[in-house]
């Protein structure tokens, strides 16, 4: 499940300020440093009160969450929002049950009161609980720091420069055939101070950036309209991601460009406008079986929906049954060596990859982050777990998958980065396409929908190019691929090597009730899938 309506709801005027996110501040306020001594003092108040109240374990998160959004269309700035949210969340384990409470008041009294409230909730929950919480052990790390290695803090770049950049993006698109264009910039900084009764005091400074755009072309005479979204990825980087460094580009067949650790937004806006216009004239795809060559800018979302989500342990166990759903990848499948895909398919989970949205030093329960295999040589080998779930898998340590989207939200299991390992043999995209007789070459994130157990999925894309006898031919329209998860990954017949490896990502992935968002990356090299069902989505009204 992803927030389908974030962009439309992050709308205009006073209404946008009423979004449930923090208070609006001046841009300069986003650069004020946090007071670490105060944060440690508040944390110690919570830990002391929890111990005094009989807690077996307590963790406290003193959080400052900063978000900046600049929203534009054509020659107009629709909105600029600088938001800050500050507060303290306290989680306690008492009598084998969790309790959580949070306060926006950063005073010792308020934190002590929140801790007592959390203890009372734990006590009440313990009465109704049929099985006690079992926590995988964590060695305290004392005082530790981790920061996203940004070269240019996006929040330090003046808003005027951002407006100027987006205005030139829009102008470039309009000049190259777009009738309408929308571009937005989101910069996020999470300043999280974590402390626990394990003896950890962890200070983290986490940065993320995203610049989505959409170019629209209209043919009034026929009443047709087509759009092409930007091909960038949201990243765990600073403003340097927008430096248009040629070294971060990937020259691809069909005259296309892929983007790795650097994004050339003007170049992509020009391409988007031209593609949107070309899509108006492109022929409609013939339905049937095709060999698909899928670029990482499209494949990331298939990995997210068909591998990332079904291997979330809380979903597998049934905790998400009423909202996000359950999973076909039940625990017995790991025992029986379930074949998730062909033997060349290897999925790796991590919370460490530089530049990724999931990269942090420690998760939200103080676990040092790492990398582990989910699917090895096509066989299911593991899931994604937090400290209170690790024992279910027979593990003695957590995977470090705990995350809360705010100080006021309780942390729970969230997806780490999940990536398809590149092929071991040398293979370029051009060479991969040479071997395809009748296929489609797919770029960009389109529509996506998947069932509640993650079997049946349908994905669109931004660009579908026909492949005829090993050559990239013209654009086709109205195509979407329909898959069943294990058959799709079983049909993976080739994966390009690591030279083509790139990240895609989801900036607002939703889960839980009340719903929380998280950001996560998925890496892949271009991959080939044989005999996939493609439907035609054109209709007449």
């Amino acid at each position: 499940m992803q927030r389908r309506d974030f962009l439309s709801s992050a709308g205009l005027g006073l209404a946008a300020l009423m979004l449930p996110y923090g208070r609006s501040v001046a841009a300069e306020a986003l650069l004020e440093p946090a007071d670490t001594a105060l944060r440690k003092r508040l944390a110690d108040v919570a830990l002391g009160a929890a111990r005094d109240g009989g807690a077996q374990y307590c963790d406290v998160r003193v959080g400052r969450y900063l978000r900046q959004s600049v929203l534009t269309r054509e020659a107009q700035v629709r909105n600029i929002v600088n938001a800050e949210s500050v507060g303290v969340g306290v989680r306690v384990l008492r009598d084998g049950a969790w309790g959580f409470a949070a306060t926006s008041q950063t005073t010792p009294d308020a934190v002590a009161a929140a801790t007592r409230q959390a203890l009372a909730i734990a006590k009440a929950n313990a009465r109704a609980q049929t099985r006690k919480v079992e926590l995988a052990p964590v060695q305290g790390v004392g005082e530790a720091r981790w920061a996203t290695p940004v070269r240019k803090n996006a929040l330090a770049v003046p808003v005027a420069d951002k407006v100027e950049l987006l205005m030139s993006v829009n102008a470039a698109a309009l000049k190259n055939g777009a009738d309408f264009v929308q571009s937005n910039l989101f910069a996020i900084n999470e300043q999280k101070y974590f402390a626990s009764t394990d003896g950890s005091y962890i200070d983290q400074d986490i940065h993320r950036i995203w610049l989505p755009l959409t170019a629209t072309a209209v043919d009034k005479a026929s009443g047709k309209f087509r759009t092409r979204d930007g091909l960038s990825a949201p990243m765990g980087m600073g403003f340097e991601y927008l430096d248009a460094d040629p070294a971060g580009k990937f020259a691809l067949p069909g005259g296309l460009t892929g983007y790795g650790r650097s994004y050339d937004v003007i170049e992509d806006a020009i391409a988007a406008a031209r593609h949107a216009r070309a899509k108006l004239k492109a022929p409609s795809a013939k339905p049937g079986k095709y060999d698909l060559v899928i670029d990482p800018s499209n494949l990331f979302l298939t990995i997210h929906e068909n591998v990332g989500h079904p291997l979330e342990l809380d979903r597998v166990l049934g905790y998400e049954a009423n909202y996000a759903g359950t999973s076909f990848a039940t625990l017995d499948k790991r025992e029986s060596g379930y074949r998730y895909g062909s033997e060349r398919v290897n999925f790796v989970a991590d919370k460490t990859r530089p530049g990724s949205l999931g990269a942090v030093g420690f998760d939200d329960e103080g676990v040092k982050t790492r990398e582990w295999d989910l699917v090895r040589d096509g066989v299911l080998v593991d899931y994604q777990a937090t400290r209170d779930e690790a024992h279910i898998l027979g593990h003695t340590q957590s995977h470090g998958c705990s995350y809360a989207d705010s100080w006021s939200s309780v942390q729970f299991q969230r997806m780490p980065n999940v990536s398809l390992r590149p092929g071991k043999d040398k293979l370029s995209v051009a060479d991969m396409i040479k071997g395809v007789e009748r296929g489609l070459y797919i770029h960009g994130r389109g529509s996506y929908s998947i069932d509640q157990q993650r079997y049946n999925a349908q994905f669109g894309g931004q660009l579908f190019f026909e492949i005829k006898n090993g050559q990239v031919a013209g654009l086709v329209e109205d195509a979407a691929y329909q898959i069943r998860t294990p058959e799709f990954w079983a049909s993976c017949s080739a994966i390009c090597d690591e030279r083509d490896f790139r990240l895609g990502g989801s900036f607002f992935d939703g889960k839980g009730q009340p719903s929380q968002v998280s950001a996560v990356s998925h890496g892949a090299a271009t991959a080939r899938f044989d005999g996939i069902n493609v439907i035609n989505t054109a209709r007449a009204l």
Partner: protein
Amino acid sequence: MSIFTEAQSKAILDKVVALSKADETSARLTGAIEGNIRFALNNISTSGVVSDVSLAVQVSFGKRVGMATINEFDDAALERVVRRAEDLARLAPENPEFMPIIDKQSYKPSPTFAAATAAIDPEFRAKVAADSIGPCREAKLTAAGFLEDGQSFVAFANSKGNFGYQTATSFNYTCTVRTDDGRGSGWVGRDLTDAGSFKAESDIRIAMRKATESAEAKALEPGKYTVILEPHAAAGLISFMMNFFDARQADEGRSFLSKKGGGNKLGEQVYDPRVNLIADPWDPRAPVMPWDVEGMPREKMPIVENGKVAALNYSRYWAQKQGKRAVGAPGNLIMAGGDKTTAELVKGTQKGILVTRTWYIRMVDPQTVLLTGLTRDGTFYIENGQIKHPIKNFRFNESPVIMLNNIEELGRPVRVAGDESTLVMMIPPMKLRDFTFTSLSDAV
């Protein structure tokens, strides 16, 4: 204390307006107390109460607009938030689509508040969870559900003397029930303003029955079928379509309501003549605030009348540019229907498919509002007016515009819950021909 009285709200808002040195000022005060309880695997998993209140101030100098919010209300704090909004306005670029604040309005109150809902306490929530879990445990079924309830207020004022205040309550309960072997799944949902009559112990029986009866599902070939969509199944498709009732989008040529050669389809026959959609903030079955987020008064108005498009949403800017009258954007959607229940529609069906609920609906092609999604929590084959057997879930690729041209019969509207839309909706069960299922899903 997050629910301010009208007098308390007015005092704060009047101070804000008086403090401002800007050309125009408007302020909006909102507060809510929201409680929730979540359960899964027949156990309570989390519960909590969140209480919050916030003041947003918007000021303008010429066409430059600045906004700021705060959650403290002493005089110094009010001064701070006004000055911050003014500072931001002076730094902001000119907005070419700037509109002056609205004039003084008169609002007719709507029945959005129910004392019974506002009185909900942790014990009530725990009982809802227990009443959902208990019968399931006894019947060897597994319940996972969520209840979120709340009371709230909104108050606003501006420098032209406009003022509005109203309180509201909300209640949203959903529960998914699965058979212990994972072969059957059922669902129930309630969205209410007044929770006084809510009974989890009777509602849960609906989900339990669907769970039990949907096990042993048989596969049916994908294709075009006559379907009966229960109100919750239809609501997700219809609410998605309503996103395109925007006049500007249509006039710009990027909506299914754009006309070939330019302009929009206002007044044109787009649906079966039996389709009637209205907005009515005062409908006691689905009341909403009598104003939209900008404070524009909402009206009781037809949106689709006898299948013809009767109204599009004009923003104040677009209305002025096109010489139209702007009215408040609708907050609810009431679709007319007949008197029959879903069960009565089934009785009158020779061959067809009953769909309890639709899920993960996403746009495939905005040109035709082609949507994809899946059925879940009880999909059944109907023969000779009877439910014959459960069938496996389907993926559909269907446009609500096409669907509302293929109506066989409409039933009695009910208020729907658990939809991704912000609209409060009354939707009838509907019998439709040629609904397009494109593949099977193994998901239960």
